[in-house]
């Protein structure tokens, strides 16, 4: 029997008690983002089933699978819009959106799974494709239907058909993939002029520079290599396309961090410093952490694995990793971000012998959501990026059952060119497996079988690693985008953790950037060799070439090694969980990365050359303090009004409608949530977890990020990021003797070139950031146990080039002795208020300066940026304060960051729905502006009950501390400067301003 395609369409019932929520959502989104009103939008979900099951059989079972009989109506082999009993009026406009061929269709795969439950006889080649149709009523008459379709779909991955009233309704067809025949690898002649070498690199999206191409060329001139190649039956003097692609992936900036490994000649024209730095990473990150490791016993595994591991107690260890997924998120915000979060989850799963992800953190940097200016070609409006990224991370995190416990959203115009999507995950694993092995140590042996576990391999995600090492252009390829499937991954996680506990695995790593070439290539270093057979890799589409199979970044895949004797148990476990596994390789000790397609060798590279053959970059760095127009506060200010305006600034405003959509409580462990206080809408500082059920032993998770300080000095930016993360953790009552950090750098291209004439300066920014990172981390004793860098965050070149502000995200995780003894930012009645730390005159690059410059009330943002000259002093206060919190003396604390003391105290009033009266005058020589709005580091506002006041003062004696005032019974915040009342605001007005500006829901209906 031949396969036929059956169309099923389903629409929600409407009318008394029933409604079309999916349609309503579109209606509200158009209202919120574009002020466009429709009277009604209705939705239809379509399924195209390609199978041997007849249309009659399917039609009989529509309500068993496709349509919910209570709330939906379904049709078979007809467009439901033509059913006049359901759609009495014909819509003015119909837009149908389906997937392009080969794009991951998660509802389609789920539908197929459900289809097999009902029709077990379904043949294995059956497929289901899904689409969505929207019917629009009562909209503006001059609306451009193509524009609207563009808003609703992403042409990179989706196709659209549009129907206008009076025309026949549009039909989405099944996305057939054209047949492709497998073709054998080609060899690529590198004995060509240099220009030709560069052309090969550029046209192949290899992102290899001339020196690297020369290194590869030299490899194939080596007589020993040629002899070995002749023996393997390979072209002796030229790489196969498989080899060249494999080298490009492994040597990409994304995988090899070449800029952080570079030899840098650094010049400071102000101090006359002239020095050479041999690898920023080794000098400023690795060395300090190793030095700290020598002093403690809890740093179990650092740098060499997928995430850094610390001992949490005798039984459990904790690991954390953060990644960025910027370029894919720019092209497909939803898919890119989702892949980001499920990808970093796999880093955790691939740590040691498998850790269980227990919490996510998400930090995004976007252009302003209300951006009115021009947009460069091929870029989405920031509001659309925000919606898409948020949805991707929401789906990825929620469906995986991993709570999102902490994060931030930062806005700046320059992130229009490239949004930053940082996704972090914390994992947990038993220190020892039941078989006695230490879980943070991988131990594969030659002869172990290597399995690919999870999904199949397709065209999706070919060249992700090399692509992210290039700047974004209009021609960026769609194949660089992948869409994750959290459920396929969840099944795999369930299975892997059982396999771990049963002692069935000797090594595991994830398939992320670079696909199998990276995952097996890295694992092969343990045994010094591997032998891969690409013909055993299951494919989504027939005909993939060998190199494509090797480097594809198709999602939901882990690479796992298993000893021969454990194979039956491992395969049985996969069958139980319905997880696809394929035996694709063996570990060897041949010293070779050896790849076959069936019997034919298609790639043979010495592991040493693959991993260590890339030449070290030599880069130039030159620092000169930027000349900026200073920020001068306006005369005759109304600080009350400024406070209301500041609270509505996107960088400060409540992100509640967004963050509430993340599950932050699954696993039943989140003791301090993103929202706190009386109405549960005040800001949380750090996340606090109690991951062992029934125990109060805790973990603290926090983040610090301050990209705008880079406008003045990226060094100050880095110090501020670390201090903010630490401050937040201090507010939670973290154990200051056991905290670890992650450094995630996102930079504009810092290599001087025609495209980047200011490369020296950007590199100097990186140098300064690294130096400050090291200084502050050493002072606070925060070892950086893992990190990542993304170094090409630019859009375009020349005049229209947009470079992001150099951005360091510092994520922190630490121990907490007892989660009951913690604080939240909401004021509690009857508290005395103190400022820990000192306010200095530091308004440069402050949120206030940016706001007033944007409104024309100030000319610039320059001036003194917050700095941290005395971290030892801060550390003393932090230690005293955390002790006081752990003793139950302090229940209220909030860190001062964007917007300074004024915004911090306002947020505390909001959380507590409580008035306060404070006087900001005190020690130091800052003026009123500095005291209200300055963003000096090291400051925390603390609330203490009257009975605990003496104990608190004693605990903090010797620390920088200043009495601010008291909470009040009134519903007003009063801020004095000595005798002058400078701010008077109703708490309700603070609430409305803070919660109003980023709502973007388009109302409740």
């Amino acid at each position, binding site marked *: 029997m031949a396969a036929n395609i059956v169309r099923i369409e389903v629409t929600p019932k409407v009318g008394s008690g029933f409604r079309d929520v999916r349609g309503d959502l579109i209606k509200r989104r158009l209202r919120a983002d574009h002020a466009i009103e429709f009277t009604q939008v209705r939705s239809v979900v379509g399924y195209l089933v390609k199978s041997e099951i007849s249309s009659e059989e399917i039609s009989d079972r529509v309500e068993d699978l496709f349509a919910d009989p209570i709330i939906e109506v379904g049709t078979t082999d007809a467009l439901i819009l033509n059913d006049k009993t359901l759609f009495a009026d014909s819509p003015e406009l119909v837009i149908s959106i389906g997937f392009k061929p080969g794009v991951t269709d998660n509802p389609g795969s789920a539908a197929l799974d459900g289809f097999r439950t009902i029709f077990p006889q379904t043949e294995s080649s059956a497929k289901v494709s899904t689409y969505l149709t929207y019917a629009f009523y009562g909209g503006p008459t001059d609306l451009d239907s193509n524009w609207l379709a563009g808003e609703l779909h992403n042409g990179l991955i989706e196709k659209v058909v549009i129907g206008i009233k009076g025309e026949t309704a549009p039909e989405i067809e099944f996305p057939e993939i054209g047949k492709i025949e497998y073709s054998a690898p080609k060899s690529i002649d590198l004995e060509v002029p240099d220009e030709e070498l560069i052309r090969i690199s550029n046209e192949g999206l290899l992102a290899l520079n001339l020196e690297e191409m020369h290194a590869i060329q030299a490899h194939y001139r080596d007589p020993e290599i040629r002899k070995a190649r002749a023996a393997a039956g390979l072209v002796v003097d030229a790489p196969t396309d498989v080899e060249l692609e494999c080298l490009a992936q492994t040597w990409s900036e994304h995988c090899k961090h070449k800029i952080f490994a570079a030899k840098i000649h650094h010049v400071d024209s102000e101090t006359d410093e002239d020095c050479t730095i041999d690898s920023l990473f080794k000098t400023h990150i690795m060395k300090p952490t190793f030095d700290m490791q020598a002093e403690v016993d809890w740093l179990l595994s650092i740098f060499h694995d997928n995430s850094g591991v610390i001992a949490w107690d005798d039984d459990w260890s904790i690991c954390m990793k953060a990644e960025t997924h910027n370029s894919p998120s720019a092209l497909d915000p939803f898919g890119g971000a989702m892949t980001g979060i499920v990808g970093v989850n796999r880093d955790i799963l691939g740590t040691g012998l498998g850790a269980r992800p227990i919490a996510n953190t998400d930090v995004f940097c976007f252009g302003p959501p209300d951006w009115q200016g021009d947009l460069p070609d091929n870029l989405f409006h920031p509001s659309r990026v925000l919606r898409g990224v948020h949805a991707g991370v929401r789906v990825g995190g929620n469906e995986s059952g991993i709570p999102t416990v902490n994060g931030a959203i930062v806005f700046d115009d320059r992130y229009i060119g490239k949004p930053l999507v940082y996704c972090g995950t914390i994992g947990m694993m038993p220190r020892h497996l039941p078989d006695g092995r230490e879980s943070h140590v991988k131990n594969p042996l030659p002869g172990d079988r290597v399995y690919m576990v999870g999904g199949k391999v397709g065209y999706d995600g070919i060249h992700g690693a090399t692509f992210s090492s290039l700047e974004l252009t209009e021609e960026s390829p769609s194949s660089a985008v992948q869409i994750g499937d959290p459920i396929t991954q969840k099944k795999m996680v369930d299975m892997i953790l059982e396999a771990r506990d049963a002692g069935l695995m000797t090594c595991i790593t994830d398939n992320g950037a670079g696909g199998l070439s990276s995952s097996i290539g890295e694992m092969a270093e343990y045994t010094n060799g591997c032998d891969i057979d690409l013909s055993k890799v299951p494919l989504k589409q027939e005909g993939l070439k060998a190199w494509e199979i090797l480097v594809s970044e198709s999602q939901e895949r882990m690479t796992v090694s298993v000893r021969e004797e454990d194979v039956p148990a491992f395969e049985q476990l996969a069958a*139980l969980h319905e997880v696809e596994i394929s035996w694709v390789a063996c570990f060897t000790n041949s010293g070779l990365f050896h790849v076959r397609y069936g019997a034919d060798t298609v790639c043979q590279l010495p592991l040493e050359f693959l991993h260590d053959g890339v030449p070290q970059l030599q880069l130039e760095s030159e620092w000169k303090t930027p000349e900026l127009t200073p920020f001068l506060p306006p005369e005759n200010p109304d600080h009350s009004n400024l406070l209301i305006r500041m609270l509505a600034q996107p960088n400060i405003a409540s992100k509640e409608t967004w963050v509430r*959509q993340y599950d932050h409580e699954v696993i039943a462990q989140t003791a301090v949530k993103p929202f706190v206080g009386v109405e549960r809408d005040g800001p949380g500082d750090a996340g606090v977890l109690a991951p062992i059920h029934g125990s109060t032993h805790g973990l603290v998770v926090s983040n610090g990020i301050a990209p705008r300080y880079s406008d003045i000095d990226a060094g100050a930016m880095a110090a501020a990021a670390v201090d903010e993360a630490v401050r937040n953790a201090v507010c939670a009552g973290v154990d200051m003797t056991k905290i670890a950090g992650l450094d995630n750098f996102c930079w504009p291209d810092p290599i001087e070139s025609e495209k980047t004439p200011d490369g020296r300066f950007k590199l100097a920014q990186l140098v300064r950031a690294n130096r400050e990172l090291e200084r502050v981390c050493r002072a606070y004793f925060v070892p950086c146990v893992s990190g990542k860098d993304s170094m090409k965050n630019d859009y375009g070149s020349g005049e229209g080039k947009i470079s992001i502000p150099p951005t360091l995200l510092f994520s922190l995780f630490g121990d907490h002795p007892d989660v009951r003894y913690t604080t939240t930012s909401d004021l509690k009645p009857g508290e005395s208020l103190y400022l820990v730390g000192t306010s200095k005159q530091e308004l440069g690059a402050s949120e206030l300066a940016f706001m007033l410059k944007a409104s024309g009330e100030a000319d610039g943002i320059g001036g003194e940026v917050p700095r941290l000259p005395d971290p030892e002093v801060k550390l003393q206060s932090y230690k005293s304060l955390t002790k006081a919190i752990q003793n139950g003396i302090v229940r209220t604390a909030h860190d001062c960051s964007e917007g300074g003391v004024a915004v911090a105290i306002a947020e505390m009033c909001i959380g507590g729905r409580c008035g306060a009266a404070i006087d900001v005058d005190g020690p130091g020589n800052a003026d009123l502006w500095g005291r209200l709005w300055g963003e000096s580091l090291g400051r925390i506002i603390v609330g203490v009950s009257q009975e605990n006041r003496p104990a608190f003062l004693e605990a903090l004696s010797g620390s920088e501390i200043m009495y601010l005032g008291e909470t009040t019974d009134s519903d007003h915040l009063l801020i004095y400067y000595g005798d002058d009342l400078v701010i008077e605001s109703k708490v309700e007005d603070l609430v409305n301003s803070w919660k109003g500006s980023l709502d973007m829901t388009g109302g409740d209906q």
Partner: protein
Amino acid sequence: MMVEIPKVAVLFGFGINCDRETAAIFELAGAKSERVHVNHFINGDKDLSEYHILAVPGGFSFGDHLGSGRLLGNRMRYAMREQLTAFAAAGKPIIGICNGFQVLVKTGLLPGREIPDFEQRASLTLNNSGRYEDRWITLEFDSESPCIWTKGITRLECPIRHGEGRFVMPNFEDLDTLDANHQLVTRYVDPKSEVGAGITDEELPFPICPNGSARNIAGICDPTGLIFGLMPHPEAAYATFLHPQHTRNEIVEEIEGECMKIFRNAVEYCQSNL
């Protein structure tokens, strides 16, 4: 033979994701928990009749595609029908939380019949807001309900975490019947209302009723009171320090939260009745 320590089968697999905490919390309530993969029951490796309680935890089985709980509900409806019928006939309690509730509704076990007929009579669908949300809500319980899980409970606070929690039935009479049978076990109520008098049929505003459920319904039981499903997550409020306002309260030695009563009720029921 009296059951001293009831055995709980906590289902997992296919995107269920609250299985670990649900299992742990039954243990804290005095039961012995085992996480059992759905396929273990389907392929016969494990026998449901050896357990005393079945828990279908929260999560995103099959990604909520084609409607939350639908695909897992179908697998159970087709492949576990006899086992489930026998389990119910043996008078053993079943709980479905969040996605588990959606599964039980879509298998037809809820609101169900005295003897399960696996016919779907209600649905849980997209929240009126169109958004998945995690927020704490206040629940009140029908004191006359036959539900064995909620005996002696008047009011609880715990989080909801769902995008498809709006309870729908084809018509008002269906809801009247359930109400008359006291099967509308628990409803969202205004936290400012008088304790014990919060339940109302009037539509409560968002976010007091977070999803637009008919009559503010948060959870229902079958006619026997043994099968209970609810959208909120009582297991996520098992300890006092999980309450969003715990830093506003005294620090106490006893960490057990009020929601543990639900799990203790089932354990005690098994101890007294099985």
